[in-house]
């Protein structure tokens, strides 16, 4: 029996978009119709809660629980928002683009169901500017859905209204942080907000707002249609559903693979991604994007799910792995990543704004052979000062964690750069 792949079943190998008709032929929008006809908003929330769905944007927060934090309407007619987070700028992450480009109606149906559950009347999809095709295809799909009566006022006579808007951003990683995203949508610099109040209570324009990752939302139609138990049984471990796993770096078949949650890492890398290229050896990997700490080859037999990866000292993050092979310099890799974080810091708080450029400069100096003896101590201090509790948002800890793990796992390589006054791989480190 081949495993089920609900999220990507409608995505065509030739890259074409799935039309409304084809989506409906595959059972699309049935879940939404059923929910409107037969389920109360609370019942949708209960189903999603029971399914065990956890956020796919990095933090893994239980989705149904988040929805239940939104106050019930009880006659309140004020605006409420459902926001789909399609900023996807974390290096090494390339799963949401596939979902939007390949099957935009699946996302729209997810937005509709989530909005129905939290009694929202306005849905936003926030898309980064570089996802040009995603935007064009989604805009077209939204027009199709509107013409077919899925979007608008009093949808199918149910009394449920939804306005739908696609917002195109202008390029900053911080826009993906959920409260900074709201500020950005309101026309500001993408600085985050202090919590509490949390967005489900006071979010966009101060109104109740749920922010959800694209992949998270794409799961919802399948859960409502097939039930919570079906969804829970898709996972190989205690965790539910399927997951879009990604592999990039020097493997034979880099790409996105939809597999049961909890698929062993080795199977993902060796079987699906075709193993290492040209006889290269895997030295380590970032399991879920550039903000997750390194794991090593000794971790390859772990199931790829939130709890197992957390217990091993890292994070599942977005589930898109970046592979470090033995022809690539770990110091150069970190210098590249910290360049990204230093550039993308929103500048709101001092440790991040001032610390990250220092980290980047120190790493670049080490990579060039200009490192000093106490540089590794300086880097370790920064990892502490950029850690949770010292900064306003999770960007800085996400920059510090992979560095701290690299300093532990690849220490001899950092030292060799300093004592040997140069990069053993000769990569020199421009970034």
């Amino acid at each position, binding site marked *: 029996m081949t495993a089920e792949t609900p999220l990507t079943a409608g995505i065509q190998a030739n890259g074409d978009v799935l039309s409304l008709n084809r989506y409906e032929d595959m059972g699309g929008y049935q879940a939404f119709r059923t929910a409107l006809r037969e389920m109360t908003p609370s019942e949708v929330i209960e189903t999603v809660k029971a399914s065990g769905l956890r956020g796919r944007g990095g933090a893994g927060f239980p989705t149904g629980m988040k929805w239940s934090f939104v106050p019930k309407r009880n006659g309140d007619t004020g605006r409420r928002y459902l926001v789909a987070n399609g900023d996807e700028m974390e290096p090494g992450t390339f799963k*949401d683009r596939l979902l939007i480009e390949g099957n935009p109606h699946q996302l729209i149906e997810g937005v509709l169901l989530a909005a129905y559950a939290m009694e929202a009347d306005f849905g936003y999809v926030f898309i980064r500017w*570089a996802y040009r095709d995603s935007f064009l295809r989604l805009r077209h799909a939204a027009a199709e859905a509107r013409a077919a009566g899925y979007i608008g006022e009093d949808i199918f006579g149910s009394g449920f209204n939804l306005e739908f808007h696609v917002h195109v*951003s202008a*390029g900053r990683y911080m826009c993906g942080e959920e409260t900074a995203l709201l500020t950005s949508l309101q*026309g500001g*610099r993408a600085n985050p907000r202090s919590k509490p109040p949390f967005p489900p209570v006071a979010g966009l324009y101060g109104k109740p707002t749920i922010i959800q990752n694209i992949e998270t939302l794409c799961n919802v139609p399948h859960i409502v249609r097939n039930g919570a138990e079906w969804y829970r049984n898709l996972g190989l471990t205690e965790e539910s559903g399927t997951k879009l796993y990604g592999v990039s770096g*020097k493997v034979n078949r880099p790409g996105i693979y939809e597999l049961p949650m909890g698929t062993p890492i080795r199977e993902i890398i060796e079987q699906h991604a075709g193993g290492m290229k040209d006889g290269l050896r895997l030295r380590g990997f970032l399991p879920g994007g550039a903000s997750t700490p390194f794991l090593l080859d000794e971790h390859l037999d772990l199931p790829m799910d939130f709890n197992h990866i957390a217990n091993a000292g890292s994070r599942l993050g977005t589930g898109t792995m970046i592979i470090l092979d033995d022809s690539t310099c770990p110091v150069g890799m970190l210098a590249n990543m910290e360049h*990204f974080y230093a550039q993308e810091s*929103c500048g709101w708080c001092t440790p991040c704004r001032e610390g990250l450029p220092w980290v980047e400069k120190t790493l670049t100096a080490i990579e060039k052979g200009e490192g000093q003896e106490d540089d590794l101590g300086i880097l370790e201090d920064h990892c502490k000062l950029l850690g949770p509790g010292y900064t306003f948002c999770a960007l800085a800890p996400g920059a510090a964690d992979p560095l701290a793990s690299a300093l532990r796992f690849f220490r001899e390589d950092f030292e060799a750069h300093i004592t040997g006054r140069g990069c053993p791989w000769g990569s020199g480190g421009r970034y």
Partner: protein
Amino acid sequence: MVLTPDELALFDYGLSLEENPRSACVAAMKFIQDRRGWVDDEAMAWLAKKLDMNLSDLESVATFYSLVFRKPVGKHVILMCDSVSCWIMGCESVGDHLRRRLGIDLGQTTPDRRFTWLTIPCLGACDMAPAMMVDEILCGPLTPELIDKILDACEEADSS
């Protein structure tokens, strides 16, 4: 005049879809940029008035977002991914090829104003690394040969 009457009508329609004028500011700057290549001082002053924003407030938003251009750019904008998967896959060496071929460094525009070369964080195309975007079209995996082909196509399009 910053916008032609036709453009203004479209602009005002777009504005009417937004919740308030300020929320439209990024889209408004991009509207101008899509038509003029960049957003000049005159356009900024006009926009600030139109959106009922303080000019320095609008400027602070403009400078926050990497893809709002407050300086002129070339006819073709090359956005090369410099993030980690593309770095592992050799974006620096294809960048060297681009540097030789265009005769400019990162962040610069060719003297004939044809090409501007910038970096961009991860394009979400790590399976086609190294990747870049040229005039909103995603290209990869890059090799020196593919870069030559793309640049030739741009030059051909310009001269026809």
